[in-house]
């Protein structure tokens, strides 16, 4: 296609990915802080949006980068991702991702090791169910590693902190969340790169 249109698509895709990242960050952040919810919802909302204002934009940017990176690497490797390429599957993937977060926030585990192992298994299951590509696995692991590193640095420098850290400064299940997040956003990005499947005829 013409380069202008391609460029336009790129911007559109990154915008979509960015907003997906922002929404997911907000929702998942809510899930994480829910346990300490006070009785007064207005204040809760206020603290959530004020205390960590920089989290959603960061997550959005990261989502845009990852979501564009996945199809890009696919095309570099010359092996386009064809496994379950449809929106229904993407939605399923997002739902499972939210479910993993939900489990990490809400369930009572006997100890942290059990929690982390369970989440790791769930994340791998997510990859196997919705991705199954080596590039996806590699990229996911890379993302998980980098993101964990960055969080460690952030916490080390005191930007924020986790309650009861058990893996250096952070919670040990965080890499699993990053991994499954990477796979999910990559899934969305690949689907977006496929283009819109059907257009109605304008009346």
């Amino acid at each position, binding site marked *: 296609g013409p380069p202008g249109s391609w460029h336009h698509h790129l911007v559109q895709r990154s915008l979509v990915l960015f907003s997906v990242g922002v929404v997911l960050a907000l929702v998942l952040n809510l899930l994480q802080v*829910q346990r300490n919810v006070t*009785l007064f919802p207005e204040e809760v*909302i206020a603290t959530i949006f004020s205390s960590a204002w920089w989290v959603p934009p960061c997550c959005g940017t990261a989502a845009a980068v990852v979501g564009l990176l996945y199809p890009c690497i696919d095309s570099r490797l010359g092996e386009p991702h064809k496994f379950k390429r449809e929106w229904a599957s993407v939605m399923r993937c997002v*739902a499972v991702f*939210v*479910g993993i977060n939900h489990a990490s926030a809400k369930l009572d585990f006997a100890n942290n090791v059990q929690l982390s192992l*369970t989440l790791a298994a769930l994340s791998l299951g997510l990859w196997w169910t919705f991705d199954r590509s080596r590039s996806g696995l590699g990229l996911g692991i890379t993302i998980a590693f980098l993101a964990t590193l960055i969080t460690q640095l952030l916490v080390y420098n005191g930007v924020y902190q986790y309650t009861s850290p058990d893996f250096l400064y952070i919670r040990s299940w965080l890499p699993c969340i990053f991994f499954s997040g990477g796979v999910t956003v990559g899934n969305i990005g690949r689907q977006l790169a496929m283009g819109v*499947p059907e*257009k109605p005829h304008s009346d």
Partner: protein
Amino acid sequence: MTLTERLREKISQAFYNHGLLCASYPIPIILFTGLCIVACCCPLLKLPLPGTGPVEFTTPVKDYSPPPVALDHKPGEPSERPEWYVGAPVAYIQQIFVKSSVSPWHKNLLAVDVFRSPLSRAFQLVEEIRNHVLRDSSGTRGLEEVCLQVTDLLPGLRKLRNLLPEHGCLLLSPGNFWQNDRERFHADPDIIGTIHQHEPKTLQTSATLKDLLFGVPGKYSGVGLYTRKRMVSYTITLVFRRYHANLRARLMLLHPSPNCSLRAESLVHVHFKEEIGIAELIPLVTTYIILFAYIYFSTRKIDMVKSKWGLALAAVVTVLSSLLMSVGLCTLFGLTPTLNGGEIFPYLVVVIGLENVLVLTKSVVSTPVDLEVKLRIAQGLSSESWSIMKNMATELGIILIGYFTLVPAIQEFCLFAVVGLVSDFFLQMLFFTTVLSIDIRRMELADLNKRLPSEACLPPAKPVGRPARFERQLAVRPSTPHTITLQPSSFRNLRLPKRLRVIYFLARTRLAQRLIMAGTVVWIGILVYTDPAGLRTYLAAQVTEQSPLGDGALTPMPVPSGVLPASHPDPAFSIFPPDAPKLPENQTLPGEPPEPGGPAEGAPDSPVPEVTWGPEDEELWRTLSFRHWPTLFIGLYQLPRASLPPQAGDPLLRRDSGVGSVFEAQESWERLSDSGKGGLEEPGDSPPLRHRPRGPQPPALFGDQPDLTCLIDTNFSAQPRLSEPTQPEPRHRAGCSRAREGPGYDFSRLVQRVYQEDGLAPSHSPALRPASPGPGSPPTPEDEGGYPEKGSPSLAWAPSADGSIWSLELQGSLIVVGRSSGRLEVWDAIEGTLRCSSEEVSSGITALVFLDKRIVAARLNGSLDFFSLETHAALSPLQFRGTPGRSSSPASPVYSSSDAVACRLTHTVPCAHQKPITALKAAAGRLVTGSQDHTLRVFRLEDSCCLFTLQGHSGAITAVYIDQTMVLASGGQDGAICLWDVLTGSRVSHMFAHRGDVTSLTCTTSCVISSGLDDLISIWDRSTGIKLYSIQQDLGCGASLGVISDNLLVTGGQGCVSFWDLNYGDLLQTVYLGKNSEAQPTRQILVLDNAAIVCNFGSELSLVYVPSVLEKLD
């Protein structure tokens, strides 16, 4: 044979048999399945509804002491006590219930004054309570020491400051409306106005100020403008921090009530679960949104069935009822669900998934259409059996792994999921398959019905008289620069029945779907807003209520004696305006003269028979809104955390709602008439969210089907009719094959105008010829062959009067015409002269190919004739000698002897096909024929040698495409498209493309573009055969498409043409031609070499020049 293969075969066989069974006995199977679902869901009735409504627990009032903080019962021993009954409650609530009747009662009492005396009792009573002194073992204490002290009101409630107590005892009575000041009360001219001033105008789900202060539900208080009840009731609500019983005794003493039949025997402990906050709701709502998106995207893929929505509904029903069955079965076997249903539900649906259902549907609809329904279902099932079983095994395996995490919550989830999966499989196999078979059967019937009338319409002898129309049309309309008025189109004669038009309107606007969508959204919104079921999970407060009233036993309460009066500072009182309406008891009162107890007088009057106390009064507090107490405690005050029990996570609130004293007042009141008006509640509307679902495609018009078979099925042996216009001929192909210049139309004028518009010198122009060999090639109007004789005397040339024109090809300035009589004619398009003709065979010519100097004619009897055209100058560059006045030239055919053109029959293939040839295309030295006998044949052009016979379609061939790269595409009545390799004769791919016939096919270097009777244009990847996207066309515009370049596709719509980017499927631009009101559907589009487009709008041709689009593309 390995084990796997054997297993596979077994499974496939079993599924096949099962499919046969399902399709054979649909109704009994559906009934059976329904019974199974109901049976499995039965245990659900026993389950308490999930939700956060208050939970109650009753203990006797005697020897009451707060439960210990720690649970000390042994684990094995079943405990009577609920889990939440731990530690001291947040508060004890005591309500003193005052009931009074007005007597004597005049019809015209002023409503305001009716309530004055009963309400004034509240002040006195409050006084008594405040001055009450408690005495127990630890000494005497004032009320202030035992009541629950409240501090500041919540910031948003500043306007209620005067009405609600602040910094003091939480004691509520109607007196709070007047700041507990009796003088103020007496000075108030409009009591009801004061009470209702804070009533919300809109729908309110939580307790209002009036409810809180009156302590009884609005309709029981009896206070209201329209109340014509003589009973007025209210309560004085007192909140204690610690339990004590002697206030009640004191009040009993002060206000003895002989006809009281009540006994206070028990404390009711009420446990309020935590209300869900917005913070809780957002993730929940998000998961539900994802769930709906998932369902939407999944069901959208259901295609090629009779009722998309029906099947989508069946799919969703399958999943939902399998979940219900799962819960029901688990309950049956003793597992009590502890997880929150609303929370895990989306995940369960996603885990179970709709995939199998979709796979099944797809597999069934891909089976050959011409098979019996039973066999189609069976084949579809068995071909997917292995993958379905494999998927199921995989999912079960994953869930099993989850079970071994040994986390109770996950284990429970997995258990539900396993049972859900199994029951889902069961339902898919029985319920969904059966529904699918019914659907497929309906579709076949519908197709049959559709086809019958369209075939019936074809017989050429069918008379359709439209003389009036023709006359009107003959009056030449002024042509706009790009519009040429043509013969009346037969389409015009098609009028839709009203009923159909309404249905189309509904279908077009997708009204029903939108309404349903909006309704669903509103419903969900209301559910989320008002109903706690499944949405509110966490405990905000646990409140225990204590009701000192017994179960209606009549033993009188022992009245304790020690009541010491003590004076205490009055805390500020607060007031909420409650609703006031009718009492349930509607007794008429005898006009007994009441005792003239003044308002200031505290002692209650002797009991009057009208005022009775029964169990219903005791239970009155239960009718309060379940948010009443949470509102009081959480909604109004910033509760000091210190006042909560140590385990602050689950605060307990205990309510001691006792009718501590029975207080009756009987007043005489002699004011007249009532007036005024109470505040009316306006129901709040939640705005319906708009969602635009992709609705089912509007059904195709019968008359608009470009059904090729009609052309062939026509009575070809019938003699040509010359004098009458034939039956309206809606078919595109038919249209083009019968095309013929009409009266008042000069072809050369059209050609000339094109060039003039292009700004090209006519003499330099290349030949005007169709750019694509598509079916609608010649830019000639649809018309009847025999028509000109009758219609107009001013013909450019006379027809040879021997048969209607069935086919026509144009190249350079020569037009080759095939007639129903079997005559082949070559005309000069510029001069309008017949150059030569050939009349050797009498079988009608159904299709023509004119390539270079070769003409191939396909005849009705299935034979092919190869002609070669020998000429000297006729094919030289186009000469424009025509003038606009040509149409008035003499109407006799002229042979020009100077340009001798002769067509010579070179070869004949006598029986190329068993049945009439319906499609004929030539390129790259090959000739391809498609026939009604379901086969295609490939011939070599030069020697008419048959190279291949291609079999693969299960219906007549309707469209063929071949190009220089030797790629051959064919489409048939079965809706399938096959791609072939012409070099080897092998089938490259096979796609099920359309519901109904494929009407046209064309290819670019990278894609295949097809259109079908379903008014869809589908674009396929040429190498893989994967559908890229499809474009929904307006009704009747199904086949109007043209390819301008490799990137640019043009389609026709209602009075417009649209340009699409082929690679991305993006709509670039829509150009409206002419006024919208008289918009005709674009029947055909022909793209000329110079980027001009000819659109057939029924009776008009529009020439559109599109330089701008081309420039933009480059």
